[in-house]
């Protein structure tokens, strides 16, 4: 089943004279698949992740995004979340004063209400949280701390994947989740993400490095350069990029012009 279909997507920084970033992205993700988008900085990978989530600082100028048969571009950010899209941030935001536990329960219950499910009370929520915490080796004191406040880079990333596990999304978007992680933390995060693999769920990873893909095996690897997906392949493509870099692809692109 097609979960997400992006066709001819063009987007720019919102506002007059905003820079064009996405210049015609095509991508189809089916349930059960794991995709990785790789590319150098500034190629539009993270922008794509944010546009999928409806960030207002970008303006979609052309193209379409269909999610589970619905027009995603018609939905507000919170609706996208409630419909099952989760974005694990590259730079998770610190929110002083709001505890992770309060925030996350509100988040889970908004989605449950949207899906016509009963809200979780404090006890059931705690049960759910405990289970996911052990999965991501998260200390229970996390829950009482303000969201991401004073967390190390690694803790923030683990917290993102932990929240992802708790929110039970259908499409998981992981934006540079590997950056800033040491190898042990990377393993924990990857392990957590792997447990989320399910036939009815898809994962889209945005990353610089092959490293993450050693732990989370993608079905497809896409190379994004200058706002377009220029090459798609299997996991072997990631290895190719690791060995030879982006130069050969860029050269062949230049040659074909």
């Amino acid at each position, binding site marked *: 089943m097609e979960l997400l279909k992006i066709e001819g997507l063009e987007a720019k920084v919102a506002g007059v004279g905003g820079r064009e970033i996405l210049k015609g992205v095509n991508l189809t993700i089916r349930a059960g698949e794991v995709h990785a988008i790789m590319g150098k900085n500034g190629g539009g990978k993270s922008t794509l992740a944010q546009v999928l*989530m*409806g*960030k*207002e600082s970008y303006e979609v100028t052309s193209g379409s995004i269909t999610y589970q048969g619905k027009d995603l571009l018609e939905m*507000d*950010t*919170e609706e*996208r*979340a*409630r419909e099952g899209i*989760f*974005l694990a*941030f590259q730079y*998770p*935001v610190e*929110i*002083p*004063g*709001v*505890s*992770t*536990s*309060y*925030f*996350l329960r*509100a*988040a*889970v219950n*908004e*989605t449950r209400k*949207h899906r016509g499910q009963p809200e979780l009370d404090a006890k059931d929520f705690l049960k759910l949280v405990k289970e996911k915490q052990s999965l991501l080796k998260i200390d229970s004191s996390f*829950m*009482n*701390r*303000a*969201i991401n*406040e004073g967390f190390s880079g690694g803790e923030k990333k683990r917290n993102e994947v932990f*929240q992802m596990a708790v*929110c039970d999304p259908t499409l998981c978007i992981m934006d540079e989740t590997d950056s800033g992680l040491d190898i042990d933390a990377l393993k924990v995060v990857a392990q957590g993400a792997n447990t989320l693999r399910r036939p009815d769920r898809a994962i889209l990873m945005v990353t610089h490095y092959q490293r993450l893909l050693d732990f989370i095996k993608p079905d497809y690897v896409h190379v994004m350069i200058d706002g377009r997906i220029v090459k798609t392949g299997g996991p072997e493509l990631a290895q190719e990029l690791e060995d030879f870099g982006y130069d050969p692809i860029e050269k062949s692109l230049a040659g074909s012009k």
Partner: protein
Amino acid sequence: MSAVAEKNKQSKKPVMAKLPAATGWVEDLRRAGRAIFDAQGYPTDSKIEAWRHTNIRPIVETEWHPAVADSSAAADLFKHYAFGGDAIELLISNGHYQPAHSSKSLPSGLIVQSLDEAASGPHAEIVKTHLGSRAKADKNPFVALNQAHLNGGLFIHIRAGAAISQPIHVVIAASPDEVAAINYPRILIVVENGAHATIVESYVGPQKGIYFTNAVTEIIAGDDAVIDHYKLNQESREAYHIATMDVIIGRATQFISHSCTIGSSITRNDLNVRLNGEHCFGLLNGLVLIGGTQHVDYHTLLEHAYPNCPSYELYKHVLDGKASGIFKGQIFVHDVAQKTDAKQSSKTLLLSDDAQMNSQPALEIYADDVKCTHGSTTGPIDEASLFYMETRGLSREQARQLLIYAFAADVTRRIKVEPVRARLESFMAALQGLPQDFRIQELASHDDDAVY
């Protein structure tokens, strides 16, 4: 308008109350206060730095009449605002302490009297020594005006070593019986060595109507005492509130102040605290939640006069509509006050483009081995935070409510007197359109460098 009429409009003297005769030295204080106010008038001159940022024209252009001492409206307000439970409840009606309405059985070590009574009774010497000793009439015309009306104030005396566990709640009710009534609450609190007390001043009045509260509180504390003080201004959003609290504490005494303003059209609070011994601890926290055209001006002064004293200050403003806030936070470190550790933080959330904040730290340091830091932030709700919360399924409105609530709750959660905290939090909830009993139990700590 003729020149004469224009001049009259510019400044009107308050109608002085005809006061009953008092003890000689009280009469002297009154006369001195009146003479100073007559000479200085209202501080309308824009060259007066301390008053430059607060437009007091609406106060100055009104002819204020002294409010009648006792009123049945005050008794109703008292019933409404009293905490109940085990709190010691005291009523001041239009500046006059009302023993008949107030708690009668007091714990040992606590003495409560009207200032008039105290000034001529067995405690006369204490009152005479301290009344007007900190809040100086010649430093502030509004203090002078208050002093000119010394009559019927409140004297709270906590004896050495007494630990008063229940909060002492003073309801200061303005109950104007006519338009443009002024009331002059005056409170003297003397805390002896080793005594502990929690004191709450609730300034209340009808929720509609123009009235003017010109209040002065002095707190004189000895050594090794603990004073937890709260001030809550819930007056009408049309009222005016100008108040000075002046505090001096002795060696190793802790003074903790939470000052919260949600009412009044124009509010000015001067809060002066002198740490007058080694190893004192001073903490001044404030919370301002206003909107419309409300204006709140806090001038705080923390005076480090001895070595080895930490002080902390956290003021938070949430400004909506065309509201404006002033925070002038002065820290004065005397040359002998080595090892001072003073931390000041002022944070403001602007909920509208028309709200304005002016936050000025002012550090004067004459010692060379001290740590003094200050920080100030002012801005709208963080877009990145809103987006982050939305990506987890919260609506923008929910995210906004939560962020505002958490911002303010950072002060309220430090409040140890439950009714004060509950009152503020239910007000915060109502502002955000949340249910009255809304409270986030799992609030996370925040700004913990500000302590408490």
